């Protein structure tokens, strides 16, 4: 889907619907730049929605604040962009501004996170991973590998109250239910390496019998590795580690045998977004929910995948 776009777009004067100059002006409101994952996500979008590909991208960073995001979307509406796309900070609270967009005739595409709205017509499509599924995949692998060994697991949760943290926890718990794996402790590490390390240190002080760590993202898992090594144990052997995300550092650790399993959460949403945006502008029917295919890697497949990893 790469046709000629040529000339860069002028203003955003076009009044909704089909752009007359063939260039699609897309306003994208990003959550922030809180993690490596997010940075990769942003990069993918910025690299795909280029002038060569027929886009004029307006990008704004909401610094993790819903109010900034709402404001950015309002501003896109007043500027009259062709399409609005955003990764919502929170699931709720979008009805009013989405209604405004709808009234202005501007289609909206969601990426990465869903919105919780009773009115599905407010947005065209939602492209993103299924966080519950990610948790489940991790849990299923754990059960498959270690059921029957009476493993004791600890969980490093993401930021309290954040959707990925809630969903991954839920998915993991439901998957391991019924097995003899026991989650003996669970604490938030705020998705960061440093906190992942401190919390893991605490777990290691507290419990002598940890067999497995489930971390809601790679960064906390990498922090846990540091803590485990500092305590004189071997990560990946003495204590198994399962994480989600599959960013480069995580994959490297997986390939090195320090992590046992990673469920991918694909940040490269740019191409999907570009395709959907074009379809929407062209008036084609698009699917309401596009689940990005998330792979999972064990130590073997990581070694293969690593050289070609983009992020």
């Amino acid at each position, binding site marked *: 889907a790469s046709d000629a776009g040529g000339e860069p777009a002028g203003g955003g004067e076009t009044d909704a619907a089909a752009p007359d100059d063939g260039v699609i002006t897309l306003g994208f409101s990003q959550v922030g730049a809180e993690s490596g994952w997010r940075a990769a996500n942003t990069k993918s979008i910025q690299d795909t929605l280029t002038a060569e590909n027929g886009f004029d991208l307006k*990008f704004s960073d909401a610094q993790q604040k819903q109010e900034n995001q709402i404001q950015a979307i309002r501003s896109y509406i007043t500027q009259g962009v062709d399409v609005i796309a955003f990764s919502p900070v*929170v699931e709720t609270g979008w009805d009013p501004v989405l209604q405004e967009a709808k009234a202005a005739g501007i289609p909206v595409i969601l990426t990465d996170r869903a919105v*919780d709205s009773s009115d599905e017509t407010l947005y065209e499509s939602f492209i993103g991973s299924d966080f519950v599924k990610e948790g489940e995949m991790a849990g299923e692998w754990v059960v498959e590998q270690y059921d029957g060994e009476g493993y004791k697991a600890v969980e490093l949760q993401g930021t309290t109250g954040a959707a990925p943290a809630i969903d991954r926890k839920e998915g993991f718990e439901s998957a391991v239910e019924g097995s003899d794996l026991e989650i003996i402790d669970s604490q938030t590490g705020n998705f960061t390496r440093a906190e992942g390390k401190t919390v893991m240190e605490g777990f290691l002080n507290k419990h002598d019998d940890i067999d497995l760590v489930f971390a809601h993202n790679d960064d906390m898992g990498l922090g846990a590795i540091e803590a485990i090594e500092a305590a004189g144990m071997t990560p990946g052997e003495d204590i198994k580690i399962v994480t989600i995300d599959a960013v480069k550092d995580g994959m490297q650790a997986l390939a090195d045998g320090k992590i046992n399993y990673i469920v991918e959460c694909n940040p490269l949403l740019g191409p999907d977004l570009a395709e959907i945006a074009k379809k929407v502008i062209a008036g084609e029917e698009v699917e309401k929910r596009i689940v990005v295919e998330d792979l999972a890697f064990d130590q073997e497949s990581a070694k293969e995948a690593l050289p070609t990893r983009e992020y």
Partner: protein
Amino acid sequence: MTTSAPARATRALKIPTRLDRRYLPVLGTFVVLALMLVLGGTRYENFLTPAVVSNLFINNAHLIVLAVGMTFVILTGGIDLSVGSVLALSTVVTAALLQAGLPPAVVIPLAVGAGTVIGLAHGVMVHYFQVQPFVATLAGMFFARGLCFLIAPESIAIENASFVELASWVQIFGGWRMSSSVLIALVVVGLGFLVLHFTRFGRTVYAIGGGEQSALLMGLPVARTKVLAYMVSGTCAGLGGLLFAMYSRSGYSLTGVAMELDAIAAVVIGGTLLTGGTGFVLGSVLGVLVLGLIQTIITFEGTLSSWWTKIVIGVLLLIFVALQRILTLRRT
């Protein structure tokens, strides 16, 4: 005795020239704000439109209310770090209670009242136990955030019909829009102004900022006033939460993280001294608009990466503060 009279008379004549100094910082902020608007207007299309200016108010109504409350506390020489969390608590309480089926008429006072109660606790800690305001309200900040998680870790949508109706009430004149939350915010600003300038409570707030010991020795009701100031701030935070709930039609426990810094920055940019005793509510409103404008400029710029966004916010803040500083220095 009589001989000194002429000498005094000449001195008395010189007074009016020194009078307006107190208004200078606010004036400075206003001038810089106007300058920025004009510059933005020449740089971006569609910038100086009623829609943008209306949005400036609509997007920041909750922050205006927070800043008004914060002004009271800062004027007494204190600070309230809890407003962001209390705002979140109020949104969560509103959403949770509405979800539970309670009518808005019951929910709204409860949500705002939660803020008042926390404010009261701050006031008591600060005044009666002489805990430093920074610490007392920092504890309050953790406390309110903790309550949020307890009540609802996940975000809750608000679907109550009458609440939604209230939230979506908008008056349109020409390109200008006035939402119910802006109206409430403006009323709060008006009340804040009246209370600070036309009541003994308000003047005592200033007196305490000028010197708590002095105010005490002057026989002013220091204890009551200080506690009340924190209650005002708590109430404003509760109300701000309500406005935010109207704005986002949801309650979420991670709302308003670091929003207290925005409120404090707005108050200080508006010319209020953190040491207390000088400043105006209207200045704080201007401060909020400055912050909002910075955000608007960022959006209009349209191509800033995440890091440049942060840097540009810092630089714009610097320009504002430095310009304001220069404007006020020149005239003194």
